[in-house]
């Protein structure tokens, strides 16, 4: 194999790395220097080659059946899909800036476009009487928002009787929307206590932002929409506390079952 590092080979190497998901931070910066359309086209050729390679290896192992519960969840998701009439989302997963525009300008445009598209996603269904479920709204946000942040919940207690997987939080600062997926959190009696979400955003100040009060009414998985009372731009921690019914303005954080930390970029 030739080891000649021509610019063309480097271009291909970066596209291959992108397709394999192994680009370093420095390489992410490096790909910004290429023409976006040309680089995107090259990536797609590698993605197609990777897909064919996956299928080749897949052909050598027995196929595996999807869990029945997941299948019924998908069927439920399918039921309302056409009714939603989703608008096309213009956001692109690749953040390579065209040579004529700066990265910040592109990001701003993508964020704005995604915000508009997301707003339409939420607005259109309600106009047509078909309201998307929280699961669908969450999936739409994840699929559409270019700035999506996600982090797993971690228990603050050493006691692992509740399990070790608690779900995750997803948040888009551009659209100021987010969702919590929660597993293993005990159901609460809303007349005695409620859960409350707090969001720590050091770019604002050191006071946590109230993310809304909510209840866990069933065992298993719950999806809860985040209701941030103030703008959140750079969240670093999401924390769930147990408070009196209706929530509190300032939490003493005596009962803080779950935390999710956002990894620094």
């Amino acid at each position: 194999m030739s080891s000649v590092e021509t610019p063309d080979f480097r271009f291909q190497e970066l596209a291959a790395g992108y397709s394999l998901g192994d680009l370093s931070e420095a390489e992410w910066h490096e790909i910004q220097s290429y023409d976006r359309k040309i680089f995107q086209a090259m990536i797609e050729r590698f993605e197609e080659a990777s897909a064919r390679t996956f299928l080749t290896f897949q052909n050598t192992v027995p196929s595996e059946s999807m869990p029945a519960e997941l299948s019924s969840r998908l069927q439920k998701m399918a039921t309302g899909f056409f009714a939603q009439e989703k608008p096309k989302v213009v956001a692109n997963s690749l953040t390579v800036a065209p040579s004529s525009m700066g990265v910040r300008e592109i990001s701003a445009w993508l964020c704005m476009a995604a915000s508009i598209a997301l707003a339409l996603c939420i607005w259109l269904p309600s106009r047509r009487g078909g309201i998307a479920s929280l699961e669908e709204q969450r999936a739409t946000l994840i699929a559409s928002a270019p700035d999506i942040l996600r982090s797993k919940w971690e228990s603050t207690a050493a006691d692992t009787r509740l399990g070790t997987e608690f779900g995750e939080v997803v948040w888009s600062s551009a659209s100021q929307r987010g969702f919590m997926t929660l597993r293993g959190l005990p159901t609460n009696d809303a007349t005695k206590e409620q859960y409350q979400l707090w969001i720590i955003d050091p770019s604002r100040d050191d006071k946590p932002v109230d993310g809304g009060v909510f209840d866990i009414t069933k065992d298993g998985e719950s999806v809860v929409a985040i209701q941030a009372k103030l703008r959140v731009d750079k969240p670093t921690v999401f924390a769930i506390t147990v408070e009196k019914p209706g929530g509190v303005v300032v939490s003493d954080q005596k009962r803080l079952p779950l935390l999710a930390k956002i990894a620094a970029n």
Partner: protein
Amino acid sequence: MLEVDESPSQSVGSLLALVARREPQSLNQCIEQYGNLIWSIAKRYSPSQADAEDAVQEIFLELWQKADRFNPSLSAETTFVTMIARRRLIDRYRKQSRSVEATGVESDFDEQPDMSSSASAELIDEAAKATRCLDGLVVNQRDILRKSIHEGKSHSQISNELQIPLGSVKSFARRGLIQLRQCMEKFSIAGSGVAS
């Protein structure tokens, strides 16, 4: 050498075209047709069962939203579905904490093998074409690409498993994929991009 049946594929027709035309039953057919394949991909690229299940939901949503972009003259439908799934999974874990290593969910290979569906037949045909190209790689490259692309392992995991320096794993994987792409395009089995 991978042995693959080269019998002609039974075309599944364009199920995604039905989705794009908003045929009422098409979404459930899509789940039935591609659910197991997408699940297989998600399991390998996800650190837990719960993550894999979340990912499958995201992938289907994206697949339905992008169904109108599928062009049967450029690629087989199974390839398109796999592209969408892999892209979503790589993007998903790229955005998540990078400290999390995708270790894959425990496989349950006791489950009934099911290679009889029309999607599997198409899969076999796709694989037969690509096998020629894979056979042209050196053993190390093929092993690394299998672990990376099929098993969803990170390059540091592969480096540990194969006792090969991380930089070499990265280099082998990228160069192997470059060689594969060139070979596949030479045999005209990989067209231009189809799933942007």
